[in-house]
């Protein structure tokens, strides 16, 4: 085959040589000595490729796709002799401007490639853009030359995960982080030893698809603080990593930096789940900017009203038309790309219920996108986790179309545990269900469908959950109208920070109670960045716009709250040491292996007498080590959320050794949690659980 010439130019425009390209793959791909550009529009009349030298204000050439380069609605061409490192590209589309019919073509605008794998324009976080630039979000080329060595997605069984939800920038932006490049992927890599010591084996990153932190920026009228799109739930380009999160973003090397971080995470046994936002884009409603989709195929990518306006099921101005075949294919292509190119271990879908709506917004019983993702061969080992609600009122916790594959953020778990911990009455029945992995919701899927969490980025931090009765969002400049009002929080007697030692002791205990229940529940636990060191947002439960210390992790708290951190480290290890806590299947409520006790049994102050009455605030349960997926110790958990100490009489077991205390949240550190089996032995047949505290015991299953 030597000497073949498969790619040769047939056309020329102002010194640029080109030829007809390949329709697939979409995007810009290096082929031989050229770059293949391919883009789709169902309704455009013509398309022009616009090429820039990097950072140059004016294009170096614009090449209209000759008619012979169209196949169906796809425009493709190969351009030769380009300097791959130094070009940026976009498109102009000709077509009707007829918003009533959903057509918004504007040839004067240069639009970004929906399949753009690297996007320039926001290369350095928080550097104010040149607002006069006619092309703000510039597509660039990505290269396939990263050396992954033997790296591979970890495929950790989902029941074994302990997830840590975090923000790339917020994790290390604070000067106390002591990293070389604060707020970046590289800094995250530097902090992997901290994550390992904490014991988590999966991190879930808030959005890292390219977004614009300047989106909807404004100054707080009183403080003057610059408010930004800090969280990033507003995608510009689904295939491109956020350049401003890379220390090397200014050099266009964000792909390498992110991949290096992922490789190092995997080397340390830590999976990476991405929080992905396919429900809307940064283009907003009809008043928003033309960045990409709107100028290419508006009616295909967005759900439109009969009048041509944008449905707003996302609460963010527009709604991606996820079950239109074009948008659907883009979503699938995108996730496959991230799974294959970046070795991503799983995805958490923001407002995922939108992905189950049809083109008019009606919920589908069998949504093609969700079904396709569930059975996709490339994604078959990826975790798929839905935030099973949307801003349009569709709430699908427990009923999300799962196809036996999808897991969910369990909002009902969060609400029930929060209320139980703060001492609400009548929660014991629901808590008994929640600690089993919520069989009422997921009986057909198993407990691993339940991502259990008490806090996440959206809402109070754990410390604020026990420090505030009400949200304090004045810093968001929305008159405290934003953010949730139903927080199920309790301030332990004083609103906000206090020097009162009794209040602070109770708060500390409540944080330990919350974490203990979370780690001892069936399902997949998720904790929020900084909860392990008592991070506060000063009562702000919607800190989406604060790129400040308000939302950053303050690493000085590692020292200040070392006792709490130690507790987290050990309770996570306790979970990981006990297979009885990590079941794939629900309990059978029977003596499965003839061990003399049920696989799970519930108790009250007296054995086998759980109090499910409307005034009850305490509950105990026992897990049989024989009933665990692998032979384990028996585990007994007494949860007393009453304000006084209560005696729990221990159930009899027909086998095994004596009970040993593992956790007692009423005790100060280090007597609150012990290394496995190193706690004091229980004498007698009862334990006293202090006010608002939890005791955890284990006993060998053999004598």
């Amino acid at each position, binding site marked *: 085959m030597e000497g073949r010439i498969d790619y040769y130019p047939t056309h020329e425009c102002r010194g640029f040589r080109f030829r007809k390209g390949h329709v697939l793959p979409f995007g810009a791909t290096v082929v031989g000595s050229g770059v293949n550009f391919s883009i789709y529009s169902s309704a455009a009349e013509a398309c022009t490729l616009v090429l820039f030298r990097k950072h140059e204000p004016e294009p170096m050439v614009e090449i209209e796709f000759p008619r012979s380069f169209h196949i169906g609605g796809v425009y493709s061409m190969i351009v030769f002799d380009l*300097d791959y*490192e130094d070009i940026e590209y976009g498109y102009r589309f000709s077509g009707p401007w007829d918003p009533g019919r959903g057509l918004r073509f504007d040839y004067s605008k240069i639009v970004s490639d929906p399949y753009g794998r690297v996007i320039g324009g926001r290369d350095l976080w928080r550097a104010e853009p040149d607002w006069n630039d006619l092309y703000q979000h510039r597509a660039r080329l990505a*290269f396939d*030359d990263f050396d992954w060595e033997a790296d591979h997605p970890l495929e950790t069984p989902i029941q074994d995960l302990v997830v840590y939800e975090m923000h790339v920038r917020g994790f290390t932006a604070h000067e106390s982080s002591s990293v070389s490049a604060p707020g970046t992927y*590289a800094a995250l890599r530097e902090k992997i030893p901290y994550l390992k010591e904490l014991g988590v084996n999966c991190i879930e990153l808030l959005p890292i698809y390219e977004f614009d932190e300047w989106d909807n920026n404004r100054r707080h009228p009183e403080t003057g603080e610059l408010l930004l799109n800090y969280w990033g739930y507003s995608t510009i380009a689904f295939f491109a990593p956020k350049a401003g999160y890379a220390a*090397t973003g200014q050099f266009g090397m964000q792909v390498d930096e992110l991949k*290096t971080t992922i*490789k190092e995470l995997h080397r340390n046994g830590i999976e990476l789940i991405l929080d992905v936002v396919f429900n809307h884009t940064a283009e907003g409603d009809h008043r928003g900017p033309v960045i990409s989709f709107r100028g290419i195929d508006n009616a295909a990518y967005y759900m439109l009203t009969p009048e041509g306006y944008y449905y707003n099921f996302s609460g963010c101005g527009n709604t991606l038309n996820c079950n239109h075949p074009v948008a659907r294919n883009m979503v699938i292509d995108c996730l496959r790309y991230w799974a294959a190119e970046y070795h991503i271990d799983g995805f958490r879908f923001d407002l995922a219920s939108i992905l189950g709506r049809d083109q008019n917004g009606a919920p589908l019983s069998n949504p093609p996108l969700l079904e396709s993702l569930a059975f996709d061969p490339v994604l078959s080992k990826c975790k798929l986790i839905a935030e099973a609600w949307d801003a349009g009122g569709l709430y699908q916790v427990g009923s999300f179309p799962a196809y036996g594959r999808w897991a969910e953020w369990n909002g009902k778990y969060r609400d029930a545990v929060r209320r139980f911990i703060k001492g609400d009455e009548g929660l014991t029945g629901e808590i008994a269900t929640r600690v089993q992995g919520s069989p009422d919701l997921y009986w057909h899927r198993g407990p691993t469908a339940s991502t259990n969490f008490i806090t996440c980025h959206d809402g109070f931090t754990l410390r604020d959950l026990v420090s505030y009765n009400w949200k304090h969002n004045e810093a968001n400049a929305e008159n405290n109208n934003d953010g949730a009002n139903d927080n199920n929080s309790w301030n332990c007697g004083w609103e906000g920070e206090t020097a009162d030692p009794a209040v602070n002791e109770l708060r500390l205990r409540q944080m330990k109670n919350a974490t203990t229940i979370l780690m001892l529940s069936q399902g997949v636990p998720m904790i929020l960045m900084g909860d392990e060191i008592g991070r506060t947002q000063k009562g702000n439960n919607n800190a989406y716009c604060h790129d400040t210390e308000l939302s950053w992790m303050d690493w000085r708290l590692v020292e200040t709250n070392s006792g709490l951190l130690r507790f987290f480290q050990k309770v996570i290890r306790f979970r990981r040491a006990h297979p009885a806590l990590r079941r794939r299947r629900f309990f059978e409520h029977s003596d499965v292996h003839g061990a003399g006790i049920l696989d799970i049994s519930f108790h009250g102050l007296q054995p086998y007498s759980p109090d499910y009455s409307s005034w009850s605030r305490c509950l105990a349960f026992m897990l049989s080590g024989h009933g665990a997926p692998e032979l384990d110790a028996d585990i007994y958990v007494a949860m007393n959320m009453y304000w006084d100490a209560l005696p729990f009489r221990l159930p009899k077991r027909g086998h095994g050794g004596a009970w040993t205390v593992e956790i007692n949240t009423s005790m100060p550190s280090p007597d609150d949690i012990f290394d496995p089996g190193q706690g004091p032995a229980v004498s007698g047949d009862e334990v006293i659980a202090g006010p608002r505290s939890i005791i955890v015991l284990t006993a060998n299953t053999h004598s």
Partner: protein
Amino acid sequence: MALSMHSSIEGNTARLQLVGEVDGTTAPQMRAEVDKLLNGSPQNLVLRVDELTFMSSAGLRVLIFAKQKQPGLTIYVVKPQAPIIDTLRKTGFYDGVYVTETEPALA
């Protein structure tokens, strides 16, 4: 700023001294030179970079190219300036090369 290069081959070792800047414009020159050196299938490639003030992504990609063209090749980067070390570290290239303060005794 331009790039000037000086190369030599001695036994199994190819040496390339880079002076100036490797950016998008000059990286193709560097790549051509590395390509030429690799035609002799050396085991070691020693890059003397103490007088190199800037290396762009295009320059770093030449290192990847060298590794891909000749698996098993050992690359030494001798006396890089701090910004270049920094970029090598953050992008992960640091793990694929030997960064040294003195030129290794190779033949």
